[in-house]
């Protein structure tokens, strides 16, 4: 069992946050679509993690534990606000190529991600950013492996539509699946 006492945070917890939280922040930015919400989400989940800290077994995979909280909390937040905010259907035109810097490009891709249905977005982030196997993504999201593959396929197709012109998503899908269109 881990433990914490006194007013300051447990040193082991601090070390974990220092070492790993920024990586989870990046994944959270992909899940939520913007850095402010991502920061709020990660801090919320870190507080939850800290509350559970004394009861955690030392063998627990803290990254997996926190990732599950991030996915679940983001899902509950999304459900709570989906009536107020409709996802954007299209991504605004980019600025001219010359003025396009890395930040603009990152924001454009995040906005495209935000336009995806939450489940598709989560599947893409978990599979391709967190590099989780299909079975683990399915377990995290509470669906079947087949559903994960379907969401992956549809998510990539939609992302390509949204980022048409970005030339960043491979064009091989048409070659492989063109007969279905």
């Amino acid at each position, binding site marked *: 069992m881990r433990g914490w006492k006194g*007013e*300051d*945070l447990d040193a082991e917890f601090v070390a974990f*946050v*220092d*070492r*790993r*939280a*920024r*990586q989870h*922040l*990046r994944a959270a*930015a*992909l899940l939520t679509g913007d*850095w402010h919400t991502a*920061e709020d989400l990660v*801090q919320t989940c*870190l*507080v*939850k993690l800290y*509350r*559970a800290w004394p*009861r955690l077994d030392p063998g*627990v*995979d803290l*990254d*997996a*534990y926190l*990732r*599950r909280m991030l996915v*679940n909390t983001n899902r509950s937040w999304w459900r709570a606000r989906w009536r107020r905010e409709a996802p954007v259907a299209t991504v605004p035109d980019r600025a001219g190529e010359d003025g396009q*810097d*890395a*930040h603009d490009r*990152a924001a454009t*891709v*995040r906005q495209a991600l935000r336009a995806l249905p939450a489940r598709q977005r989560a599947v*893409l*982030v*978990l599979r*391709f*950013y*967190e*590099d*989780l*196997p299909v079975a*683990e993504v399915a*377990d*995290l999201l509470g669906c079947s492996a087949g559903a994960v*593959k379907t969401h*992956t*396929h549809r998510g*990539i197709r939609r*992302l390509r539509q949204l980022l048409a012109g970005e030339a*960043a*998503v*491979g064009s*091989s*899908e048409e070659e492989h699946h063109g007969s*279905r269109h």
Partner: protein
Amino acid sequence: MDHDTDREDARAVRALLVAAAGDDPPGTDLLGGVRRRVARRRVRRRVLAASLATLSAATAIAVASLLVPVGTGTPSAQARVAAAAGRTATEGYRVRIEYSSGEKGATEAATSSRMEAVFDPARRTGRVRLPGQDLEVRFVGGMVYRELPAALRRDGKRWLAQEYSLDPGRDVPPLAGLIKLAWQDPQRELARLRSAAAVRELGRVAGGGWSGHRYAFELPIGKNVVPSRVTGTVDVDQAGRVRRLEVLVHPAGSVRVVMEFRDYGARETVQAPPADQVAPATRWHRGEGKPKVKR
């Protein structure tokens, strides 16, 4: 119907996601936010009645029981390298830089140089020294100051000042920047590393007081450049920081840059040169202030 994503799509989406997560704002204080929230919770808790505290604990246990973690997934190699580049760029460090370029026919001989540098990203300062040549490059705030060789100094001007950006492609094309400027700016090389592609893990590696993993990567160098390819390897330690970065410009051997990072947390005061010794680089390059050549 086969829904398996092909490898090319996976690689493209992976690159997109790494790019989309690559502009994380500097200075985000996650731990500070957690401390404030925990402190607020503690204050509220002290006010609450003992019965409510008991209920809260019971709820927490119930929530925790629903959140049993499974799996051991880790970020992709590409995400790990991008994260290491980002993390390294947030701490002070010293770095030894070795730059070598191969022989280019009869006109240009092979060259090799070694530099020592120290950077403090939090204070936006840095200094690169070329031992034996009495030359420096200083980074202070949003400016970079490059010391002129003695033969080029005129009118008391010893330094050229230029606005500085971490964007690797801002001032010069990516390949030219790598060949000409990599030796004097590890910060940009770390920024460039965040866009590394085709990243794959090569295995475990260890150095003095650290252990970690080595990754191979390729760097995108844009279009409209001479046929060339940029590859490299990077060693990332157990704390997720870059320890060694080697970049090769192909054809093989044309340029090789090796950076060895150490002394994380290092701090060294770096100040801008005296104003009367500084000339703006743009005016200098336009010819203003250069010595007149008599024909």
